[in-house]
């Protein structure tokens, strides 16, 4: 078994009104980007708060760097950077002053502080506005300033709650790029989101949260196999030829062939059959014009999963 940097074991949070997090178990390995996905109110933020000791644990255990956030929150918070959902800063202070305050709380020495703050702001591309008041900052700039705080902390693990929430596409691409660059430095990252397609591109593994539980967990490809049933979808576009569909369905490994439009076929197969399909289309005497492999999209998995998850209780 690999040792996990962040680990939740049967983690549960009960409020008087109900259970927010119900028996959640997962682990984030060192250097991994782990995504917690799910609709709002699925218990992602509550799980995060329990992991860094900002919320009491009702049952189960949480471990970060092998430490218990209930008992040793300071040791954890010293090495974990946290970017809350729609992070806030003191508007009347400048970007650099905001970082100075948290740097002092982190206990950084004055000399180290200055250099680290400058480097962190440089890293997230905010050096030019370091002496501007945060009141003038856009949402994207605030999120980047939040990341700068984590960079400055030299955190070994970062927990990001909805980092791309409310950002325009350009800003969220930039932010994800920054997150990826953190990973290359060996930072372990746990992030939560309900924006699936953006997050899909950075996460090594994901867990789908629903009503306080983890519904599914694994790599995106794994989930695709579990939820969508079929492994790979190959799309073929070709002109002419005879009995193309029959030819394609005769290939070993093809489970079904659909023809959504004239001259277009969609194959569901067990493995990547692009090369074989191309040969078969040509053998049928058709001119191949497009060949593509649909990677399972998290969006599809998610929608499909929650559709079926909702149908069950309604039927019952």
């Amino acid at each position, binding site marked *: 078994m690999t040792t996990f940097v962040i680990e939740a074991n049967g983690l549960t949070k009960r409020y008087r009104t109900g259970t927010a997090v119900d028996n959640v178990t997962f682990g984030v390995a060192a250097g991994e980007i782990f995504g917690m996905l799910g609709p709002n109110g699925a218990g992602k933020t509550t799980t995060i708060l329990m992991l860094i000791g900002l919320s009491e644990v009702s049952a189960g255990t949480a471990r970060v760097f092998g430490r218990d956030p209930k008992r*040793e929150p*300071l040791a954890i918070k010293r090495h974990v950077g946290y970017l809350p959902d729609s992070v806030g800063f*003191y508007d009347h202070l400048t970007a650099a002053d905001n970082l100075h*305050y948290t740097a002092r*709380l*982190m206990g950084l020495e004055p000399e180290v502080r200055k250099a680290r703050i400058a480097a962190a702001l440089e890293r997230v591309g905010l050096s030019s506005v370091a002496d501007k008041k945060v009141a003038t900052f856009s949402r994207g700039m605030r999120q980047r300033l939040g990341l700068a705080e984590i960079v400055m902390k030299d955190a070994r693990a970062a927990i990001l709650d909805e980092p791309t929430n409310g950002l325009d596409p350009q800003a969220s691409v930039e932010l994800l790029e920054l997150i990826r660059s953190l990973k290359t430095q060996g930072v372990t990252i746990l992030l939560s989101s309900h924006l699936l397609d953006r997050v899909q591109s950075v996460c090594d593994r994901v867990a789908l949260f629903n009503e306080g539980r983890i519904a599914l967990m694994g790599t995106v490809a794994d989930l695709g196999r579990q939820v969508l049933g079929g492994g790979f979808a190959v799309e073929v576009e070709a002109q002419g030829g005879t009995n193309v569909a029959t030819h394609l369905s005769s290939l070993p490994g093809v489970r079904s062939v659909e023809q959504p439009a004239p001259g277009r076929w969609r194959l569901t197969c067990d493995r990547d059959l692009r090369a074989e399909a191309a040969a078969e289309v040509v053998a049928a005497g058709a001119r191949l014009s497009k060949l593509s492999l649909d990677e399972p999209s998290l969006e599809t998995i998610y929608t499909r999963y929650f559709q079926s998850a909702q149908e069950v209780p309604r039927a019952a």
Partner: protein
Amino acid sequence: MRREGSAFQGLGIVLLKELADHFASARMRVLEWLVVLTALAAVYGAIQQVRDVTAEDPFLFLRLFTTAREPLPSFVSFLSFLIPLMAIGLGFDAVNGEHNRRTLSRILSQPIYRDALLFGKFLAGLVTLSVSLLSLWFLVIGLGLIMLGVPPGGEEMARAFAFLVVTIAYAGVWLALAILFSVVFRSAATAALVTLGLWLLVSVIWPALSPAIAETLFSGADQATLVVGGQMLARLSPATLFGECVLALLHPTTRTLGPIYLSQLQGAVMGAPLPFWDSVMVAWPQIVGLIAATILLFAAGYVTFQRQEVRA
């Protein structure tokens, strides 16, 4: 198993930051001007009055604080009115402000405990109030020196200083209350309104109401019980406690803050001032009461804050 590390780690940093915020804020500037101008007006009035009436008062300097000249109230009554306002102004958005700016979870994810944040905020408020009150105190004494031309005696200074300490304790009560409500209410406006409402109730309505309540509570009891009961009830209000402290400290002839029994009058020289420490002893329960109220209110806010969910 104990939790690791000191609860006060980061306290100094929070304190300094909050202090800087207070001193730079526009709110503080307005409050300062309000306090300084009104207080100066009151002292000026008092000086005019003091010049007119007395030359033989041994505690001439203390009259600066307590003498009123129509239509202005005395410096002390001004203070008892303005200090709660100032303290509430500094404290009403201490915690809910952090919530609403969404800075709370970010700050608490740094290696500090919640204790440091709340305690730092309270101390910063108290230091700010103390600095303002101390400068005000110096202002008044300086003005008195210049305009009266009489230097204060040692005992007068001691009494004036004790008065300053009591004033700070009184400010602490309202600051702790404001911070408590800033923890309880998520909206800063609600917190401010509730605190102000409670202040009105406690300092204006309650003293007037307490004799009536005493009468219903102890109906049929003798006159002395009614008076003492009413006074006890009135003392639940920090404004009453502050008023009594001031009375004992700044009017040296005050012998008791309750009803006077005949036995106490035996051998007393009417109108003779008490020594300083005896005056302090007269007001001691009230002084302790003010400090205890501050601690209790702060503790209530502290417990509530510790149990509160951080998430917005």
